[in-house]
């Protein structure tokens, strides 16, 4: 967003000034630095003013210097001087040769540990260099972080929301530094002291880091390596950034009062130097031009974090894109309009509708694609050639589907959540407004589900419900109570002449439920084929399972007809293309794949996510595929080209569920951070964040008008959200002095019971049923399914 503007240049300069320690030229550079260090040290005894001058020179040079080679070495030397000056002033320090004595210095300074071990450690480090040794000192990290925290907490209220996010990356780097250097206890102590205030927002990452104990872990762990190798993007306003630089260099700026004062001496300086090192090496500031007060508190975290690897590389470009907005806008316009209906099919459907209109004496039934789905303003509709290849001719089933769509559109219950916002909740009109705004929800509760049902789905005509079970089987129920009869296999092919003779070879008897057996692992996702729409029962069912296969089941024969192998790992999600024929799967192997039912190998592999693809959804016009991943991002892929066209960064946890609005404009994503984000597909920007759920969100669904979002989750509730509403946290009048400390003035998300945003229209609790599936019928009836948990079950 602001990358091209001067402030961004400002932001990038400090990091360029001091290159990372881990470069290939590192030994050379440190060797020369060691030499210089001796000289500098001898000079530095008592010459603190000279050092200060150097510091000042650095500060003034910051904005316009472009980080040339000489500069870099000066900086690192200068840092050494600064640190050595501290030792020089210690009275107990014997004034001998530094190189012989570095072990002793550490011995004095480390508060814990056995001297011989430290010496061993230093011996093992050997010639790596004094800078390395000095950076090993665990106490300055502790001091530095204490002071940084005090500075952030002591800063003005208006700056605090933007300063707070920098605590987390610095904490992580300090912790990883300590572990990397083998200071396990110091690291644990550090973690114990400082982790708790960060825990609410970053619990997943913190927990992961806390499991790393040994340097080898840091080297082998994906997340730790991402912290090491990527820049952590922090967003700041220009004035806030200036204050931070001022504090880092001089210890002033902002309101560094209170607890910070005790460290204003040399120890504080050393701590700040440690902070500075992380800031220079591992942080990147995205400096916004906007005013501090005009940015909402939660916008500071949006599109921040370890971004560079999350954003796909634009075809072969060497430069890492660091802003998702830049990537999203570089991918051009999307064609989000409704898919065109083939001309012949349209004519045929019109004909059938006219005939029916005559029979029913209802001339108002007309096939009109505009009445079906009113044209959405500002989106480009794709042409027929944009669509993935489809059969050239249409069948009766297609005509029936199109005809039924028109009927559904006419008989739909209109839901207008906006009606609710304008009405006083306690007034007598509120009941009528609720009825207009909120859907009727029918809950299907599974009982005695054994080890649990990970997934469930309804067919579009509500004639069938399917559930996949942890015990590797799928069960289908006829919701109409009809008997599900498959075709027998023991018949003479010659005896089949017409549809009547096919009916004859159906099984006798049967019940209203069938068990489909074939998978060898828990079934994680199911999808009924969309071809018959709401006009008739579906013919096929797809399933995805932990056994790394996807399977196609025929509902005529009630058997498995194809197993699609290709994924290496459990397949988490599967969905039909809205036009049928194609389907997509998302797997633990970090890819999503596109398949067609008639081929056993996949057609496209969508690779780019850093972790599991947990969920996916097709865009209603079937040009795009949205995927949600454990790398906390959601992406939008061009189905045919196989390239990523949008990336959505903003969740603070695994993306657990997705929904795309029927009008094709919005993407809703639910994450393990218990928030639902609403994104604009066209621009890739987040529209708003909706919070209120108190446990994982399992399923999302838009109403047919795209005006209402329904979510269901592990907190046994179904919640209705206003898509068009402005949202934002509930602003409560705060009782002054009730909390005492400064925290009470910040509106924070995830704050106990105060986390419901205003666009949460209604919450419908169930008794003890986690909602695993939420779905709207074409006529806007909401269906939800879940497994009842008996109170004694675990």
């Amino acid at each position: 967003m602001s990358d091209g503007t001067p402030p961004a240049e400002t932001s990038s300069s400090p990091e360029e000034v001091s290159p990372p320690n881990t470069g290939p030229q590192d030994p050379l550079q440190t060797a020369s630095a060691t030499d210089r260090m001796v000289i500098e040290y001898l000079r530095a005894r008592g010459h603190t003013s000279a050092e200060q001058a150097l510091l000042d020179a650095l500060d003034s040079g910051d904005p316009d210097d472009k980080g040339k080679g000489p500069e870099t070495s000066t900086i690192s030397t200068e840092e050494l001087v600064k640190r050595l000056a501290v030792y020089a002033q210690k009275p107990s320090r014997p004034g001998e040769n530094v190189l012989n004595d570095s072990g002793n210095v550490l011995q004095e300074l480390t508060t814990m540990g056995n001297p011989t071990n430290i010496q061993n450690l230093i011996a093992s480090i050997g010639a790596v260099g004094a800078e390395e040794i000095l950076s090993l000192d665990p106490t300055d990290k502790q001091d530095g972080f204490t002071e940084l925290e005090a500075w952030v907490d002591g800063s003005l209220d208006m700056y605090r929301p933007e300063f707070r996010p920098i605590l987390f990356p610095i904490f992580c780097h300090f912790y990883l530094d300590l572990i990397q250097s083998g200071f396990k206890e110091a690291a644990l102590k550090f973690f114990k002291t400082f982790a708790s205030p960060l825990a609410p927002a970053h619990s997943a990452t913190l927990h992961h880091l806390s499991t790393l104990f040994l340097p080898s872990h840091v080297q082998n762990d994906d997340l730790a390596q991402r912290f090491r190798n990527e820049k952590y993007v922090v967003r700041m306003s220009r004035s806030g950034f200036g204050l931070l630089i001022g504090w880092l260099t001089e210890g002033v700026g902002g309101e560094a009062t209170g607890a910070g004062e005790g460290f204003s001496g040399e120890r504080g300086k050393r701590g700040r130097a440690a902070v500075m090192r992380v800031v220079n090496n591992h942080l990147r500031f995205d400096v916004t031009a906007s005013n501090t007060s005009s940015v909402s508190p939660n916008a500071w975290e949006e599109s921040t974090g370890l971004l560079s690897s999350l954003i796909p590389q634009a075809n072969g470009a060497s430069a890492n894109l660091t802003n998702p907005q830049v990537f999203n806008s570089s991918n051009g316009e999307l064609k989000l309009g409704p898919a065109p209906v083939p001309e012949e099919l349209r004519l045929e459907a019109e004909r059938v509708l006219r005939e029916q209109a005559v029979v029913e004496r209802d001339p108002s039934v007309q096939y009109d694609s505009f009445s079906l789905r009113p044209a959405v303003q500002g989106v480009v509709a794709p042409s027929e050639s944009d669509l993935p290849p489809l059969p050239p001719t249409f069948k009766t089933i297609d005509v029936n589907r199109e005809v039924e769509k028109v009927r559904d559109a006419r008989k739909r219950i209109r839901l207008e959540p906006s009606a609710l916002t304008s009405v006083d909740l306690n007034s007598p009109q509120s009941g009528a407004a609720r009825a207009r705004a909120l859907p009727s929800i029918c809950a299907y509760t599974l009982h005695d589900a054994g080890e649990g049902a990970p997934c469930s789905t309804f067919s579009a005509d509500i004639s069938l419900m399917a559930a996949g079970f942890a015990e590797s089987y799928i069960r289908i129920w006829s919701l109409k109570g009809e008997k599900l009869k498959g075709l027998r296999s023991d018949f003479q092919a010659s005896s089949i002449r017409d549809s009547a003779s096919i009916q004859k070879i159906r099984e006798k008897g049967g019940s209203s439920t069938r068990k489909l057996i074939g998978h060898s692992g828990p079934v994680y996702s199911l999808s009924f084929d969309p071809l018959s729409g709401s006009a008739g029962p579906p013919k096929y069912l797809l399933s995805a399972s932990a056994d790394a296969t996807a399977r196609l089941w025929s509902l005529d024969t009630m058997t498995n007809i194809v197993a699609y192998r290709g994924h290496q790992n459990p397949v988490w999600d599967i969905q039909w293309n809205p036009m049928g024929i194609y389907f997509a799967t998302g797997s633990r192997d970090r890819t999503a794949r596109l398949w067609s039912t008639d081929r056993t190998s996949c057609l496209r592999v969508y690779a780019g996510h850093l972790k599991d693809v947990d969920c996916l959804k097709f865009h209603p016009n079937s040009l795009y595929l949205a995927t949600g991943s454990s790398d906390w991002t959601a992406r939008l892929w061009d189905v045919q080209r196989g390239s990523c066209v949008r990336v959505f960064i903003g969740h603070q946890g695994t993306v657990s569920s997705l929904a795309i609005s029927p009008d094709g404009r919005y993407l809703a994503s639910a994450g393990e951070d218990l928030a639902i984000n609403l994104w604009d597909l066209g621009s890739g920007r987040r529209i708003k964040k909706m919070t209120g759920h108190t446990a994982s969100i399992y399923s999302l669904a838009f109403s047919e008008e795209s005006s209402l979002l329904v979510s269901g989750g592990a907190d046994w509730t179904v919640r209705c959200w206003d898509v068009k509403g402005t949202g934002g946290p509930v602003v409560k009048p705060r009782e002054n002095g009730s909390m005492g400390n400064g925290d009470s003035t910040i509106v924070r998300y995830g704050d106990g019971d105060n986390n419901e945003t205003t666009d949460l229209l209604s919450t419908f609790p169930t008794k003890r049923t986690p909602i695993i599936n939420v779905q709207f019928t074409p006529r806007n009836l909401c269906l939800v399914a879940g497994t009842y948990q008996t109170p004694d079950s675990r």
Partner: protein
Amino acid sequence: MSKPKARASQSQSTGVYKQDSIRDVAESLGITNLSDAVTSSLASDVEYRIHQVVEEASRFMRHARRTTMTTSDIDQALRVLNIEPLYGHSPHNPPAFRRALPFPQLPTAGPVYFVEDEEIDFDRVLREEKITLPKGVNWTAHWLAVEGVQPLIPENPPAIPRDPEDVSKSPPRTNTAFPPTPPSPSRPTAKKQQQQQLVKQVLSRELQLYYTRLTSSLLPPSSSDHAKRTAALASLRNDAGLQALLPYLIRWIGEGVVSGLKEGAQSENDGKVLEVLIDVISAILENNTLFVEPYLHQILPPILSTLLHSSLPPSHATHLRTSASQTLSRLLTQHSTTYPSLSPRIMKTLLLALISPAKSKGTREGAIRGLIGVGKEAVRKGLIEGGGTKVVGSECAPGETGPLVDAVIDAFKVLQPPSDMPETATPEVTEQLNEVIGNHFAAYLSGDQTWSLGVLSDTSQS
């Protein structure tokens, strides 16, 4: 990075997996001389690996839409990490870890946990327990919301009244620019309230006061506050608006009768108590504003118990039984039209008490009085056709008089009032009398020809 040197002074707890555990495992493999440095780094590494597996398993847990991790999740995680899963753990049957009793000899050992391994005796299982197959998965459907309102049906959790705080807050909120917030039932404070709201206060304070006053003026019965009691009964008989009290009153009566009869019921006081209670029942029945019908099944037991109890206080017995039978009669006349099965059922009870052997005289008398209360038909059925008189007569000593005999005579009087100028029955009639009602009572009737014929006529007619 070089290999870290663990420190000898590392004694603090670094995590879940302790160095001691490493040492124990090593010793079990025959390695005894592990250095601290090795155990420490091994412990750290083992813990890291465990966390890796658990992190992987948590994904499987999430995708299985559960919030509790099971052994199957760990199994799946091990599988995808290319490690052989641990066999023998079924998620259906989670191992229960138990803490062993502390060893006094080894205080340093710390808590020891073990997996309980229950021994199953097949013989016993096959003999005693019926093994039922689980029903299998099924589903039910219900309306979670109808047009945005959650219906109050058993499938849905009970409605939570809106936060009083919320209500008080919402008017000012609507004045501001912010849209009104819907009630949030998930708030913890609201949940606490839900618990309390389940017991709903039905009785108003006034009714509660009335109830205490009423019951205290009725019982305990002392002769002094006779007026008070009369007033209370009159109030009960005539006052409107006592419907809400009815269940409480009826329970109070029931309890009073039970306690009055239980304590042997020989004392004067008990008799009085019962008398009052019967009066209360009849007062309730007399009150036109009360809708008693739903409570009939609760009113009948006290009446019938009083009627049929074997040993009522002698001073009050006859009066009690008579008034109970009158109350019963009133009850039947009022309600037998709406409950056609009521009188047959009561008659059956009374007949059983009258005819079946080994009942006390009190019970027999009560039964006869009850039958009188039920009506003429019942008396005829019980005493004449059912042979009740015979039974009673055979139990009576010759020439005996008493409440039982009086009751029988009263019953005969119900059938046919004695004539003013009795003339001796003819021998045929006397013979018939002896045959139908037994010698004992035939003697009473034989002096009156009309009466005897009246009593008998029905038998011959039927």
